Structure formats: structure tokens, C-alpha cells
């Protein structure tokens, strides 16, 4: 089928292609959020904020090579900012509250990023791990403002009139506040994905990759290593802040117990499962993290486990899969599929045009025997 001329001109440009995909994404979000039951909608809302955080993290880790185990801390910062702003009776629109969450997380991200830019591998991992452990304690230290152990409940936002009208027009029902939040989360996810996809394929993204692959070469090519690293960290922290802000509205409570080390490790799991550096992978990972627990818990119940035990099955599965991914398919799901496709394409090309044969490169590093 021939593509219309105009559409093809648009999709020839990366930005254009991303915008088209984004527009389709918004339509899908609206359709899903309008017609699904409220349980599914709240699940989708959780998926959206996890996916936003995972997408930000995969850009940092996959494209720039910085592994952060502390992104749960930025989510906490975003969530607490949103909670405090929303409770302040200032009547700020939700979008402004979310922007506030992004701004604060961005500022903290810039400070942490400047320190992180000078660290590598295990040192960076250890430092961000410390961050993940340290930040929730602040909520207890400033308990007057942040509510201590109990946390802060987050009042539901009012549904704006135009939104209610639009939804009524589509579905002939009045939208609830939580459905409004879910819409916001879904649209925010699409927005973030379009932005990140653009950044990745832009000059900035290419610089990040250059820094990841070879510092010396990048430096010789005139790239400021520190600036590239800090920028990647800031973008990633901003995503986590937005995710945290949305989480505050979806969960309606921000408490230190919601931002344990587990949350940070969960994000890492998501991006490893999907494949480091791939936005699609981050989506797949976030989807697994959202929908697997219910499945695993149900299965655990059938196997005669108690609720508490069954609830641990999902993390057990992620953990095992994460270990297996690293041992067997370090590219993650998306990376492995891509590699297969590339190999198949190469085989087809070779079959079509028998070129002078080159021996295949060695499949892996030489084995180190015991």
C-alpha cells in the first residue's frame, strides 16, 4: 500500500516520526482510559508512572552508561513535592503541581549528577544505593512538614470542567478524579517517551553514547564528559521526579515505606529485563512489573502459600530473571530480539549476494577456565 505523500514526508524525519507515534499513543491512552474498568485504569496509571521512571533510567544507564540504584530517591522527592504542593490549599492546577515535582527533582538531580559524573561502575552504584537509603530518612527528620513515618495523604485533584465535558462527550459518563489522574499519567508517559526518543536520536544522545562507549575518544572529539554525564543524569532525575509526582496522585499517600530500596531496585530490574537503553524495553519491563505481581500472587495462592509469601513470588521471579538475563542474554528482551533480527537480515543478505566469505568474529571473549 502506498503511503500518502504528505505522511511520508513527515515520517522521513525522526522528529516527525516520533510525533506521529506520539499522537497515536495519545489516542490509545484516551481510548484505554475511557473504556476500561476502574481497576484496570488504576493499574494502567501505575504502569505509566513506573514506565516514565524506567524510561528515564534506561536513558541514563543504557545510553550514558551510568547505573543508578537511587532513582527511587528522586521519585520520593517528586512525590513529596507534589504532596506538599497539593496539600497547601493553593488551588494550583495538577499540571503545575507536577511541574513543581519535576523542577525540584531536577535541581536535586543536578547536584547529585555533578557528584555522580565523576564516579564509575561500582562506585556510582554504591553512592546511588546510599542515596536510595538516605532520602526516606529525611521525611522522618522533617516530620512536621513531611508527615514522618505516617506520610502525607494526597487530596484528589478536582476534575477540570473542560475535561469532564470532553469525557462525557466520549463515554457519556462523568469521569472520577482517579480517572483524571490516570489520563494525566498516560499522556505524560507518551510525552516523556516522545521527548526521550528525540533526545536519544539527537546530537545530545549521540554524545551520551560516545561518552559511554569510549571516554578518551569522546574527549578527543571535543565532548565535555562531565557536562554530558550531568545532563543525562538531570534528564533522568526529572523523569523520576515526574513519575514520583504522578505516583503521589495515583497512590494518594506518600510515606517513607513507599520508597524503600526495593523501589529503586525494581526500576533497575525493569530496564534490565527490557534491555538497557531501549525505551521499548523500559515499557516492557514496567509492564511486567505492573502486571506480574498480581499473576504471581494468584499463582502463589493456588500453590497454598500465604498472602505474604505469595506477594514475594513476583520479586523472586524478577530477581531470577534478572540473573538469567545477565548470564544468558545481556541485551535484555529487546536487545536479544534485535540481535536475532540483525543476524537473520545478515544471513538473508549473504544468501542473496554471495560475498567473499569472512570468518565470523569470535562469539565471545575467550573463556577463562578455572
Amino acid at each position, binding site marked *: 500500500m502506498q503511503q500518502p505523500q504528505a505522511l511520508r514526508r513527515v515520517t522521513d524525519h525522526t522528529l516527525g516520526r516520533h510525533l506521529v507515534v506520539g499522537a497515536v499513543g495519545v489516542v490509545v491512552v484516551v481510548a484505554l482510559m475511557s473504556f476500561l474498568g476502574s481497576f484496570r485504569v488504576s493499574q494502567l496509571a501505575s504502569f505509566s508512572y513506573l514506565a516514565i521512571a524506567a524510561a528515564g533510567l534506561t536513558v541514563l544507564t543504557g545510553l550514558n552508561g551510568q547505573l543508578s540504584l537511587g532513582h527511587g530517591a528522586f521519585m520520593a522527592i517528586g512525590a513529596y513535592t507534589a504532596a506538599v504542593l497539593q496539600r497547601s490549599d493553593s488551588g494550583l492546577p495538577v499540571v503545575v503541581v507536577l511541574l513543581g515535582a519535576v523542577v525540584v527533582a531536577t535541581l536535586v538531580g543536578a547536584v547529585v549528577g555533578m557528584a555522580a559524573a565523576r564516579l564509575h561502575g561500582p562506585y556510582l552504584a554504591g553512592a546511588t544505593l546510599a542515596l536510595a537509603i538516605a532520602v526516606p530518612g529525611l521525611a522522618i527528620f522533617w516530620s512536621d512538614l513531611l508527615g514522618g513515618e505516617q506520610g502525607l495523604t494526597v487530596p484528589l485533584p478536582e476534575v477540570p470542567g473542560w475535561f469532564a465535558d470532553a469525557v462525557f462527550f466520549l463515554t457519556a459518563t462523568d469521569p472520577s478524579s482517579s480517572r483524571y489522574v490516570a489520563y494525566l499519567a498516560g499522556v505524560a508517559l507518551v510525552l516523556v517517551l516522545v521527548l526521550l526518543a528525540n533526545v536519544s536520536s539527537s546530537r545530545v544522545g549521540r554524545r551520551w553514547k560516545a561518552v559511554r562507549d569510549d571516554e578518551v575518544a569522546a574527549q578527543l572529539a571535543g565532548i565535555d564528559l562531565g557536562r554530558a554525564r550531568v545532563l543525562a543524569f538531570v534528564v533522568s532525575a526529572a523523569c523520576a521526579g515526574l513519575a514520583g509526582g504522578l505516583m503521589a496522585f495515583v497512590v494518594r499517600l506518600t510515606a517513607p515505606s513507599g520508597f524503600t530500596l526495593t523501589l529503586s531496585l525494581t526500576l533497575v530490574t525493569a530496564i534490565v529485563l527490557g534491555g538497557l537503553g531501549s525505551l521499548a524495553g523500559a515499557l516492557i519491563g514496567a509492564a511486567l512489573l505492573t502486571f506480574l505481581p498480581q499473576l504471581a500472587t494468584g499463582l502463589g495462592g493456588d500453590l497454598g502459600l500465604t498472602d505474604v509469601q505469595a506477594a514475594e513470588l513476583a520479586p523472586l521471579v524478577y530477581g531470577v530473571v534478572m540473573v538469567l538475563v545477565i548470564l544468558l542474554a545481556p541485551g535484555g528482551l529487546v536487545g536479544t530480539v534485535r540481535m536475532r533480527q540483525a543476524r537473520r537480515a545478515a544471513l538473508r543478505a549473504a544468501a542473496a549476494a554471495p560475498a567473499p566469505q*569472512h*570468518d*565470523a*568474529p*569470535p562469539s565471545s571473549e575467550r573463556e577463562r*577456565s578455572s
Partner: protein
Amino acid sequence: MTVLDVQDLTTTYGAVRALDGVTFTAPEGKVTAVLGANGAGKTTLLRTLSGLVPPTRGTATLGDTDLLSTPAEEMTRAGLAHVPEGRGVIAQLTVEENLRLGSLGARPQTERRFGLERVFGLFPLLGDRSNQVAHTLSGGERQMLVIARALLAEPSILLLDEPSLGLAPRVVGQIFDLLRGLVDEQGLTVLLVEQNARSALSIADVGLVLDLGKVVVHDDARTLVDDSSLRHAYLGF
């Protein structure tokens, strides 16, 4: 008498043939110098013989031992001591600890030719510095340390990879004289890989020239030195 017998030895790295059908024997109590340009396969030959790199084809026997089926960590017990390129001291350990490691891997059931005392006699400098951490040693001292350590393993053959690398000519001379002495007095067999062909041939009995993984010349050291066209073609002096 032949100690080391290598037949049709071939080693490949991916598509690259680093060793291509190498065949030679190393006579007992002699120094065999392995010469050739960078990338000729000299180091690969030693690494294949000592089990660090798997060969694709061929055989190599040391006395009655099949070297190619012996794992690297069994080599010293089989009587082969390999001193790798770049000195190979373990810099964080003391001189004495480095030497102890040599004795720990020694060939069982052999008459001890080289005790610690003997080695300190050969290399008095090492005796003076036995409690020093090895990274404080100079390049020449390190080379003496690794040779001493290899001797403590009581090898029937000593594989040396570029012992002259980065050393002052005077130090190279000292070390080579010492080696020659050991060969003459103790009947040690040496396979000496060198870029520095002139120095190597000055103490070698036999010379073996590798080019692109193949043996191109295998002859008396004297003959090699005297044949000027050969020297120009492969040895650069």
C-alpha cells in the same frame, strides 16, 4: 636428546592464524632462541605450549607429557616453567613470597637443584631484598626475580618471553650471561623468545625464526649469525 617436541602446531584467534603448522624440537641442555618480528607468533607459541591459549591442531610433548592436554596450572608440575612477557612478578607480594610461590608449584619427585639458598647465591640482590614488596624493584631486578622464581619450580624446560624488554643493554648482558651459565652448569633447557635477535643469538645454540606464524628458518645459531642475507631479511641486524 630432545626435550620438547612440537609438531604441526596451529593456533587461531578468530580468523587470524597466529601459529600455522609450527614444527620443531628443542634439544636438552641447549638454548633455543625463537626470533621474528612483532606479530610473528612468538608469544602465541609460548602461550599455546603452556596452556594459556587452546591450539586448533597439532601436538606438543615434553618428555612423556602431552602438553596440549595439560592445563596451565599443571605445567610447573609437568616440568615446564613459563615466564610471561612484562616480567610477571606479582607486584603486591614480597620478593620472598614471589619465590615461595615458585617452590609451591615445583615438580614433585625431582632432585632439588635450586633451593632458596642456591637462588640467593645466584642472585645475591634478591637475598638482600627478600622482605621488600616486589613493586619496589627495578626492571632488571624484577627479571631476575621471575627467573629465580621459575628455577625454584625445578623445570626441565624454561620458557622466557622477551626478558630483555625495556632493560638497559648492560642489564640484558648480565641476565643472558647468567642464563648461559645455568644452561652450561645445570643442563637447563631454555626456549627464549626475543625481539632482540642479536643478544639472543649470542647465547643461543639453535635459532628458530617465525614469520606470520610459520617457521621460516630453523638452524644453528652460528649459521644464522653468519648468514647476512637471512639476518637482513628477518632479524634486522
